[in-house]
């Protein structure tokens, strides 16, 4: 009896009727403590200053419930555009619908979101593929590797998927252990330490992002092991440092451009608000692989 009515029905005309103007933007990030998302924030704040709009940045702290509430707060605040980096691409769907019902344009960033008017994402499957192709090439197409996965959210899982595709295509490469960390340096270090102890014959490590990969690199150094290649994903400044450091075992990272991605998403969103829908709902940005060999040409975030 208490389930009549449904708040999440989009209003008839859909969202973003066109002809509007963007003065207030809400940017929702899944975890600002990750430098990748922090770079997105910085990029967006620069853009806001340059273009003269207001931006409210909120950290989801990896919690879908929090992101739900933040969307509601943005609705009250009367933003015209929400740039959404969701903790879970589908779980956020109902909140997206609420925002749209209030006439707000929602553009998904980095991770697609169910029902979003448009999405600007890195191809995370491709990123995983690039990383592992580099890894497999470096270890000569055969050997044992470790997987250090991340929190069960879309982007890390897509990267794992991409990497697995490469491993399946290379039957001489075996995943001997896989553990899930918390997307940070400390868990990369702790897990890799124990995984290396259990597995003496290891040639490579794939980590779903740079912090975990760099943690694993520290573990290798502390265990005084050699001949192990580490790859991450993101192309972060710390990864660049490691690539330049001769002691490091870090080999490659498919680089994304977080600030650029955020700015692109803003452009797309602004377009929709003003009545110009993009031709494709999803704008896919391809990652570019950076390795020890070509790091000097990479300009970084």
């Amino acid at each position, binding site marked *: 009896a208490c*389930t009549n009515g449904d708040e999440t029905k989009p209003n008839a005309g859909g969202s973003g009727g066109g002809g509007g103007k963007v003065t207030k933007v809400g940017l929702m990030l899944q975890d600002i403590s990750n430098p990748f998302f922090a770079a997105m924030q910085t990029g967006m704040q620069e853009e806001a200053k340059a273009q003269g709009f207001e931006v409210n940045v909120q950290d989801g702290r990896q*919690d879908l419930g929090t992101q*739900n509430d933040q969307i509601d*707060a943005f609705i009250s605040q009367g933003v015209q555009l929400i740039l959404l980096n969701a903790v879970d691409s589908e779980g956020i769907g109902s909140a997206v619908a609420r925002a749209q019902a209030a006439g707000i344009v929602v553009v998904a960033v980095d991770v697609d979101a169910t029902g979003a008017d448009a999405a600007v994402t890195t191809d995370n499957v491709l990123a995983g593929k690039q990383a592992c192709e580099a890894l497999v090439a470096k270890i000569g197409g055969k050997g044992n590797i470790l997987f250090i996965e991340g929190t069960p959210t879309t982007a890390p899982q897509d990267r794992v998927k991409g990497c697995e595709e490469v491993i399946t295509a290379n039957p001489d490469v075996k995943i001997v252990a896989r553990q899930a960390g918390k997307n940070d340096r400390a868990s990369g270090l702790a897990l890799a330490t124990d995984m290396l102890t259990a597995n003496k014959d290891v040639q490579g490590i794939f980590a779903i992002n740079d912090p975990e990969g760099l943690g694993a690199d520290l573990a290798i150094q502390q265990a005084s092991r050699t001949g192990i290649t580490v790859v991450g994903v993101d192309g972060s400044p710390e990864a660049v440092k490691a690539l330049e450091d001769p002691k490091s075992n870090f080999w490659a990272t498919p680089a994304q451009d977080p600030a650029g991605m955020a700015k692109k998403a803003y452009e797309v969103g602004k377009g929709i608000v003003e009545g110009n829908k993009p031709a494709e709902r999803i704008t896919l940005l391809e990652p570019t692989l950076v390795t020890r060999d070509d790091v000097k040409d990479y300009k970084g975030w």
Partner: protein
Amino acid sequence: MTASVIEQPRSGAATFSYWWDKVGIFAVLILMCVVMAFLAPNFLSVDNAVNVARAVSINAILAAGMTMIILTGGIDLSVGSTLAVAGVAGVLLATSGAPGPIAILGGIAAGALAGLINGAFVAWLALPAFIVTLGSMTYLRGTAYSLLDGQPLVASDLAYRGIGNGAVAGIPTPVVVMVVVYVVFWFLLERTRFGRHVYAVGGNIEAARLAGINTKRVLLLVYTIAGAAAGLAGIIFSARVLSAQPTAGTNYELDAIAAVVLGGTALAGGRGRVLGTLVGALIIGVLSNGLVLMNVPFFYQLIIKGVVIVLAVTLDSLRQFGRKG
């Protein structure tokens, strides 16, 4: 005077402290709302009030169960994980074809079962609730993951989606559910024999036992009821996000405990009120909402929240000094 039963008239001081005792933390809430009304754009709007109420509902429901547990002198760190397990159970049931009400009941039952297990350890083995629920917080989280094989399970046309997203006469369903939960808990605690027993067990468990109270049963029931409340919260959560999330509710236990303590319930047990908890939950909710509206960077939000929690209990303790001195 040869003392007989003297119903001494309530003096002015007693009335004041009695009154302050009841509204003290409420005054903090009002103060906070006034501050936010000035500082936070659009804070004072019907829409935003609805948002706050909806955002608060899940924590408030968890905190109602937590209040009962804390009144017995216990604590439940596993409510967040219980919420996740219950949401997973509800979504799994619904996606495997169960009608909405059955899925809802299934989720609540999963929560109640988790609570019952906690209660069994606390009641029968007299283990400290803190460590029992620290353990169950961990294994229940693991259970939520393993039920889903680590992946969120999306169910866009969830049978019971209305309980998270619907509205009754313009009021969001989660808010309605929250109000019903509080009425039930208030009634249980203030108007029933069971409620008196809850306070007695928390106040002095040995005296309760010697007074003939079945303290084990009381504890078992309390943990089960709190588990059921967490289960209900899990159902609402899954309906709001239209999916089963293994990470749902992470760290929610801390917000729930904060609401209980802000609401004036003593962690030592035996003293407190469930309606105070609702006020405590609203304080946290208003604060979070206002800080977002004011566009405060998230790490300053953390600083402000932490400081407000400490200040609010400080204020509250000064009130109690007043009562004593």
